[in-house]
């Protein structure tokens, strides 16, 4: 029933519309984003908190492990092996040349065709900045404390180091009188035998059976120069003649000249009358002394300047291997022991690479409108493949480019080579197989189908073994072929079969109307395929194709089983073959995982960009 209208039932809006106001702060900006995405509901909030906690916990444990106790030296001491395998040591410059060529070409191409110039430019700048900043920072970080252990079971070692004039070094003598104050450090630097002994003793201390304070540690420290002469302090007495003091003590000394020094450590077992009682542990903490990545590195770096290090019986060297660390380590120590050595190795190549890239980019940008420059860059890429192979392989009997057989190629070089050859060769082959499988001619169709299904039905490892063993047996011409090349063929055939199926999937989604339209316009089948069908089909299956390429990249690790040492193979060989690296498999494999991840992620990122570019992003069928 309709009632009577009152004045409030009628309304006319004022002429001016009210001014627009800002939305509430909780619905826009970062706060709004958080609210809308992470805390939109109670269950979402709980999930966010739990997941964030899990991720943070994982990240924290990983970071703290990698900073405080991981030994990354297993990789950076073996950088040559990791990057190039058993490639001849004196021919490594050829790999550097190849890398230079590729970097220059990449810079040129980016300048000529790149639309992402700004992002890449920033990325290069950031990398350069890190390369500059980290060594500078690391130089400001004080050298880590070096711990020399005095233990009851064997005579103490002397300690050898390099000192500079005016440098202040300090030695702290620190007896371990209860179980706790030693545990942390002992778990750190000390070789395992001493650690075992200590842990037994510490258990006794904890149980109350042993009072370490009762044991005497009569130790005399003296600072000697390279000739073994004791240095005298300003007061005239020999430096650090400081004898047993259960409370410990410290001395510091400003070095008078550049050169090698020895800290002589003498334990006076006669003080207590009986050797057995002289059973205490003590640390001598050395501060202000330069550490080296390894004894060899130190000898190499300093021998020119200061001559050979002094020969001392039972010397401990101020190098990282002597003080290999498995316990807690400070961030500063992480920088000086782990980061700086790596940077000192890669900083020059990175600078050269960045300079080449940047030059290429500038030339490419300036010349992008010139047809000659564009053609030259394209031609450069095409030429680069044979040129690179010739540079890497060389010729038999040549003096400048002696033959380096592919059987010694390895590491990242072999991985990338197998991947690039696999991609470049399997792509056209895969497309041809896919088209062949859809052919109207039964002979071609059945042959292609047979090949695809056979290869897809067999594990890659079988194909690689066949390429190594069986095929040369049947076909003697192949037995002379390099193993690496046979592996390339195997990987290519395998990848092509999968690629063919991916491409066929793309061909199937092209509506028949497209082909009819092409035919109605008078395009012959070949033109219709190359101009109309393939561009659309390939674009539609870019993610699948790139996915196939990524798994090809990862599958190259399988060639290790037929005796080629690509990235995984060579690292496996390092950690299993060299005794000193055996404890550091975790570090080694983590680095490999990171290398694989970075390359795979870059590939899928490129595929995403390809998908979003051009007509593909707005196609509607």
């Amino acid at each position, binding site marked *: 029933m309709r009632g009577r209208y009152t004045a409030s039932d009628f309304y006319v809006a004022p002429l001016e519309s009210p001014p627009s106001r800002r939305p509430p702060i909780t619905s826009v900006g970062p706060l709004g984003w958080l609210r809308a995405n992470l805390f939109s509901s109670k269950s979402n909030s709980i999930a966010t908190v739990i997941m964030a906690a899990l991720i943070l916990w994982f990240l924290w444990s990983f970071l703290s492990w990698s900073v405080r106790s991981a030994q990354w030296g297993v990789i950076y001491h073996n950088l040559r092996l990791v990057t190039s395998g058993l490639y001849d040591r004196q021919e490594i410059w050829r790999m550097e040349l190849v890398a230079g060529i590729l970097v220059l070409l990449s810079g040129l191409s980016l300048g000529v065709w790149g639309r992402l110039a700004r992002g890449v430019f920033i990325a290069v700048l950031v990398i350069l900045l890190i390369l500059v900043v980290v060594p500078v920072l690391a130089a400001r970080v004080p050298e880590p404390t070096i711990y020399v252990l005095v233990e009851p079971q064997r005579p103490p070692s002397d300690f050898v180091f390099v000192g500079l004039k005016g440098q202040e070094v300090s030695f702290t003598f620190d007896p371990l009188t209860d179980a706790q104050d030693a545990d942390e450090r002992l778990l750190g630097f000390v070789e395992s035998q001493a650690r075992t002994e200590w842990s037994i003793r510490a258990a006794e201390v904890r149980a109350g059976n042993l009072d370490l304070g009762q044991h005497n540690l009569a130790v005399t420290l003296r600072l000697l120069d390279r000739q073994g002469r004791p240095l005298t302090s300003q007061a005239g007495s020999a430096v650090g003649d400081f004898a047993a003091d259960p409370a410990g003590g410290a001395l510091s000394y400003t070095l008078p000249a550049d050169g090698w020094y020895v800290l002589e450590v003498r334990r006076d077992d006669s003080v207590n009358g009986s050797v057995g009682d002289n059973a205490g542990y003590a640390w001598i903490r050395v501060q202000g002394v330069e550490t080296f990545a390894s004894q060899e590195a130190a000898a190499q770096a300093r021998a020119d300047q200061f001559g050979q290090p002094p020969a001392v019986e039972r010397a401990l060297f101020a190098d990282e291997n002597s003080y290999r660390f498995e316990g807690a380590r400070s961030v500063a120590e992480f920088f000086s022991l782990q980061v700086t050595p790596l940077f000192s190795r890669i900083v020059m190549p990175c600078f050269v690479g960045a300079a080449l890239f940047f030059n290429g980019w500038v030339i490419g940008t300036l010349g992008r409108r010139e047809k000659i420059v564009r053609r030259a860059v394209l031609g450069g890429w095409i030429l680069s493949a044979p040129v690179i192979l010739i540079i890497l392989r060389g010729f038999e009997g040549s003096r400048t480019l002696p033959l380096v057989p592919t059987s010694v190629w390895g590491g990242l070089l072999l991985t990338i080579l197998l991947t690039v050859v696999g991609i470049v060769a399997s792509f056209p082959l895969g497309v041809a197989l896919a088209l062949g499988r859809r052919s109207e001619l039964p002979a071609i169709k059945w042959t292609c189908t047979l090949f695809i299904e056979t290869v897809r039905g067999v594990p890659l490892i079988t194909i690689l073994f066949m390429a190594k063993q069986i095929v040369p047996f049947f076909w003697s011409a192949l037995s002379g072929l390099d193993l690496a090349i046979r592996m390339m063929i195997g990987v290519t055939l395998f990848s092509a079969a999968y690629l063919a199926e991916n491409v066929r999937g793309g061909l199937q989604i092209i509506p028949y109307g497209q082909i009819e339209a092409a035919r109605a*316009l008078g395009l012959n089948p070949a033109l219709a395929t190359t101009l109309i069908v393939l561009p659309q089909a390939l674009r539609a299956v870019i993610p699948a194709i790139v996915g196939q390429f990524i798994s090809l990249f990862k599958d190259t690790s399988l060639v290790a089983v037929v005796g080629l040492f690509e990235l995984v193979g060579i690292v496996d060989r390092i950690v299993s073959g060299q005794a000193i690296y055996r404890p550091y498999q975790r570090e080694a494999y983590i680095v490999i995982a990171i290398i694989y991840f970075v390359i795979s992620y870059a590939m899928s990122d490129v595929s995403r960009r390809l998908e979003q570019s051009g007509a593909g992003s707005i196609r509607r069928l």
Partner: protein
Amino acid sequence: MAETKSSEPIISCRGVNKWFGNFHVLKDVDLDVMPQEVVVIIGPSGSGKSTFIRCINRLEEHQEGQIIVDGIELSHDVRNIAAIRSEIGMVFQQFNLFPHLTVLDNIALAPRYVRRQPRRTAEETALQLLERVGIPEQARKYPGQLSGGQQQRVAIARALAMQPKIMLFDEPTSALDPEMIKEVLDVMKQLAQSGMTMLVVTHEMGFAREVADRIVLFDEGRIVEMGTPEHFFTNPQHERTKLFLSQIL
């Protein structure tokens, strides 16, 4: 329309038969089309009218009878097919533009690769054709960015770029929104007035009445009735024609 017709038919079909498997789609179809003539083919769904015009540029293959286009008989000879296809433009119900190419590239593609014109010439012609169908400003867009009516007009321009003697239209307005039908029909009318030989399968009776020189009614794979629009709409003879017209008018 054009009253002066030369005596030789440009398309001549004699006893055309076609089967899809066991299904007899076309039954003894005879049709002559004169140069510059506009023939509209109407009929219920499944009557074979689309199949018939698709036989004319050999998108479908007829099994019996004879189709002669501009003096060339359609046979298995690949060169004949290519020659005939370059004489005939076709416009599809679903436009079938190439979604990965710009409008300009869609139109210039066939002249460049089939007629081997230089890129610049082909693109100039393409722009003129876009002008003619009324959307020159869309040249750099992709088909997916255009409305249905615009896409169909691009499809017409694409067919015209090969300078065909004959244009086939296979229900060109059936997939369009009602307000876009007119813009496409206007282009087709203008094309008919310029003297193009056209074979149009359509349900647009207004267009048929206004533009057609002759109307052909297909039913169950054969031609039921054929005549001028006047004859067709005012004085249909066959029962099937009367029934068909009563249902759609």
